[in-house]
């Protein structure tokens, strides 16, 4: 690489477009087949869930008295059969997907915002403030989660918002720890010192220099949090503490299907397949993102 100062007038005049690290990462991700296939499948499941009412002739809560526990029947439009209450399972699986994906995304978003803000603040300020903030995280971490959920439901009754609160309250803890660690290593970097020397305020240093550089691991962790949250919601619903009838989620459907899996296996197989495929996709995307964002670690 030569490094000679180029005399003015000899150089091309139009600006070169720079290639950012994000653009580089995106190109690497595009080359990862498993991740790209996962994105396509996940998009299909998400779109099907969103447009569920238009994909099936049946409403999700209508009971067909003559179709109780019926196997898949294409002529009647019951592609996945019906459940023990005679409701169409295809449309219920898609509605369950709506609920599960929404819980996954909203809770992850909450954990992302709280976790990044909390972790970056603790790591950047450091010292005693950091120690106190992180001990608070440790305390929350040590609360038994299921007791916490049961306590909340007993106190406030079963409510959808409670699930968001309960899941959001635990899933930001890991995020805060990850971001704090990243922040501590970043704040000793010279470009942060240069920003301090340049008179940039602490808030802007966090916003412009620290947080954008923590986003690589954070993005990866987000894709791993979404399936974890979906699984947690399924678990809560499986215990009967989550979503209420006639609303449903994959966890509820699997719970119901599991009860009668010898006689009506389709009630278990279809929602379980959707859940498993979704979780697989998120994990593959997370893997692909990790490889794309930090190619040295492969």
């Amino acid at each position, binding site marked *: 690489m030569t*490094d000679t100062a180029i005399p003015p007038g000899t150089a091309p005049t139009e600006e070169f477009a720079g290639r950012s*690290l994000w653009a580089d990462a995106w190109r690497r991700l595009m080359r990862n087949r498993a991740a790209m296939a996962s994105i396509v499948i996940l998009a299909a499941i998400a779109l099907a869930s969103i447009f569920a009412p238009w994909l099936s002739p049946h409403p999700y809560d209508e009971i067909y008295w003559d179709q109780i526990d019926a196997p898949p029947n294409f002529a009647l439009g019951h592609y996945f059969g019906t459940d023990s209450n005679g409701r169409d399972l295809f449309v219920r699986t898609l509605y369950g997907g709506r609920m599960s994906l929404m819980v996954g995304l909203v809770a992850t978003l909450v954990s992302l915002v709280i976790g990044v803000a909390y972790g970056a603040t603790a790591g950047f300020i450091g010292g005693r403030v950091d120690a106190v903030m992180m001990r608070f995280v440790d305390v929350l971490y040590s609360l038994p989660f299921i007791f916490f959920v049961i306590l909340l439901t007993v106190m406030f009754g079963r409510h959808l918002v409670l699930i968001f609160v309960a899941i959001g309250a635990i899933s930001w803890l890991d995020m805060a720890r990850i971001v704090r660690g990243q922040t501590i290593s970043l704040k000793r970097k*010279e470009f942060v010192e240069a920003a301090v020397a340049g008179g940039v305020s602490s808030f802007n240093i966090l916003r412009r220099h620290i947080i954008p550089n923590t986003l690589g691991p954070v993005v990866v962790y987000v894709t791993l949090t979404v399936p974890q949250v979906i699984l947690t919601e399924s678990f809560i619903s499986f215990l009967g503490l989550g979503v209420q009838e006639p609303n449903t989620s994959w966890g509820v459907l699997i719970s119901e299907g599991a009860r009668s899996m010898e006689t009506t296996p389709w009630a278990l197989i279809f929602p379980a397949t959707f859940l498993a495929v979704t979780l697989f996709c998120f994990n593959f995307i997370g893997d692909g993102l990790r490889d794309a964002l930090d190619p040295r670690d492969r």
Partner: protein
Amino acid sequence: MPPAAPLGPSPLLSVRDLSVHFTLGAGGLFSRRKPVLLRAVDGVSFDLRPGETLGLVGESGCGKSTLGRAVLRLLPSAAGRVVWLGQDLAALSTAAMRQRRKEMQIIFQDPLASLNPRMTAGETIGEPLKTFRPDLKPAEAKRRIQEIMAKVGLLPQQINRYPHEFSGGQCQRIGIARAMINDPKLIVCDEPVSALDASIQAQIINLLMDLQRETGLSLIFISHNLSVVRQISHRIMVLYLGKVVELADRDQLYRNPRHPYTQALISAVPIPDPDLERAKQRLVLSGDLPSPLDPPSGCRFRTRCPKATEICARLSPSLLEIERGHEVACHHWDE
């Protein structure tokens, strides 16, 4: 040759008895370990005139970089004063200090690490501008950024490039452009060329000297490379374990070093002539740098000094002006 230093009587910067201490081993909330005090910089005083370059040399771990950062208040000082244009910087509030930062900048050793990998060259260079001149229109800010890029030898068209698309020397030029964009009065150069190859070192040194000639800025130039320091500095300060051992004009220091440590450093500089190099008498120091956690009593250099006597263990030598502008901290300077 560095540009001729102006003889302005009033210093830009006066440092008096500056000390920087680090507390090591301070544990968490409930730790009962006793923290250890490390005196990284211990009672350093000097003046810097406008347009002057002060070279700071010494072994690694002697407090050069710490001193440079403490002058800019990037590190808190334990004692002493840093007076900038008649104003004590330690007395300023955080907000007032932030305003002052427009006038004093720093460039770093590792050119790539000193640039945010997620920001383009233009964003990096323009950040101090945006901080101090938020009123500037984007087009005007861009014009100034491209102007400074051209001045430091970058192509203005490279404004949208990211750090990983530049070479090490180019990254250092970006760092210099960022330091220069607000027309500072002082730049602390913390080993700015030690990570670059020799040919690029010379270019960066020449660039710094050109900028100094044009804008009259002062430099504090930190390096362990005596040839480089000799080329750029007007005056040179030699540090050993956080204390000044000798301070003199460049030519004076090279012609007539009085402190045994300075003599040893200068005799270690290779001469690019094999005959002279073979004939020269080297003053080789024995031993390693003692731990700064537990410095020797009296003169800190006595454990490695060929001239050490009994007084050196008892009494720490103070800086003595043996000639105009030539200060030495040694009991045996005239032997």
